[in-house]
């Protein structure tokens, strides 16, 4: 097994070269990695795991993680075609994480922040009890310490295998963000590919500032379900970051290479 879940896809050869999903060109893996995991040809933003994301955003060695060992005990004993226990074990092996969120204290260009990131490779970055708890603790720490909260979302939404408990994380995280807002705290929400469903419909849409990475998929209902309901072609670029900015739900689209300095500048503007 390669270092992450992406390598499973059969059209991407392992090793030195990657096929870019954006331009379908073969690109040199090392060049992509050195370029913030962005395609040097077409600027396609590859999905990045939680640890990589933190490395890209936080000052070197500044990250101190909270709730490191938190995991799901499979409260519903959920089994579909595969058991949730197996899905968790596979995801843990592939990502070297216990669940889809990593949160902690960090510095971004010298500014203290509480940083939370979701890992799109861990059961699609879906939010169950662990992700909900970690995001909530992150918002509470930001409130308590009076430092900005920065969350990079990458999620398919609520995690069905935890049933209603995962849905309840939407109200829980939103309530925590409400208290941060009431205390005058700054919350910068970064929507990366994808930010959809239960995560889009909770904390990710509640940033004081909402930044999106170029071409990230952002929306509530999946395009297939919408197509089946409406029986009508979806507009060009539907549910992309650009589409959401045009419709007024994203403040800024920022290339990954500029994200660190952009966040630092915003923190300075708000005097936080």
């Amino acid at each position, binding site marked *: 097994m390669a270092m992450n879940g992406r390598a499973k896809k059969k059209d991407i050869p392992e090793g030195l070269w990657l096929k870019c999903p954006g331009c379908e060109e073969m690109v040199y893996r090392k060049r992509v990695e050195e370029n913030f995991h962005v395609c040097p040809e077409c600027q396609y933003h590859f999905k990045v795991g939680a640890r990589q994301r933190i490395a890209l955003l936080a000052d070197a060695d500044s990250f101190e993680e909270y709730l490191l*060992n938190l995991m799901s005990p499979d409260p519903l004993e959920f089994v579909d075609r595969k058991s949730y226990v197996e899905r968790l074990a596979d995801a843990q092996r592939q990502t070297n994480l216990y669940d889809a969120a990593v949160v902690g204290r960090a510095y971004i260009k010298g500014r203290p922040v509480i940083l939370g990131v979701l890992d799109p490779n861990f059961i699609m970055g879906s939010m169950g009890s662990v992700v909900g708890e970690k995001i909530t603790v992150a918002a509470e720490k930001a409130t308590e310490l009076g430092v900005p909260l920065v969350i990079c979302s990458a999620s398919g939404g609520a995690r069905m295998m*935890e049933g*209603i*408990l995962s*849905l309840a994380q939407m109200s829980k995280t939103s*309530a925590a963000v409400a208290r941060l807002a009431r205390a005058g705290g700054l919350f910068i929400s970064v929507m990366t590919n994808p930010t959809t469903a239960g995560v889009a419909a*909770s904390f990710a849409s509640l940033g004081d500032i909402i930044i999106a990475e170029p071409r990230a998929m952002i*929306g*509530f209902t999946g395009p297939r379900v919408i197509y089946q309901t409406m029986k009508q072609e979806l507009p060009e670029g539907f549910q992309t970051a650009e589409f959401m900015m045009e419709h007024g739900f994203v403040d800024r689209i920022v290339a990954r290479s500029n994200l660190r300095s952009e966040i630092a500048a915003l923190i300075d503007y708000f005097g936080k």
Partner: protein
Amino acid sequence: MARLYLEFEKPFTKLEEQIRELEEKQRRDGIDASAEIRDIRKSLIVMVRKQYAALSPWEIVQIARHPDRPQTVDYIEAFVKDFKEIRGDRLFRDDRAVVCGLGMIAGERVMIVGHRKGHDTREKVECFFGCAHPEGYRKAMRCMRLAEKFNLPVVAFIDTQGAYPGIGAEERGIAEAIAVNLREMSILRTPIVGAIIGEGASGGYLGIGVADRLLMLEYAYCSVITPEGCAAILWRTAEKAPQAAEALKLTAPDLKAFGVIDDIVPEPLGAAHRNPREMAVTLERRIGRYLRELKQIPVEDLLAQRYAKLRRVGVTIEAASGSSAGSA
């Protein structure tokens, strides 16, 4: 109009038919069949009880969706006095999938927000089968803010399969609309009583579903996604919905055990659609009780309790220290 019988209700129909015939005979021929009727009624009750005690989650979903099951507007008609509907989000339009308004419940002035599914085809189409657009959630929020301003408690009736899956809903920010409601309802400075009366599915339910006291009718269901939606994704076919309903743990006792709801409201024998009047009386009393109870709580305590309640839902454990996720 012929009544719709669910598969597991069919054994009842014969006995009910017999009772009707005997009553008719009594009237027509002036004979006394009351003893016989009483006996059949007794066995009917035993049969219904037995059947309903052994319902599968998927059967409960069918009851929750029964076409004759009372909906928000039926409860408003049944026990909300002097209902004054409030329309529109003052931004885009009036979403008929959400009904809002002022009224009196059990002697208390309240603001009502609820999903509206519709009974006949025209009404169902008009209100998108109870699937709200962003403007529906924004209308509800506007009314809840109004309630907060004038110290009226909010009563939410929940009955939806989810928010409307459409292009317009996405263009107008359905995710943002729901998220804002979650945030604002968590800090709304007035009591909120919620009642899941039929279907409580997905973010579409949650968008008006944050409450100080969340009630759930005995045969309602509440889930992260409809069983069909879950089955389509995880089993790759909606036909596995019965299995998904089982796996999702979506019945009232499950929800109570998870700490998501506070109280299960018992339904009449054979569920709400068999006796809507009795259901309405029970629900009105229960809502009234919680309204009076919440009124006694100072608002700061109310908000602290609400947060604590939202905060503690979820189940996590600590992995054994020293083990790494990779070797888990």
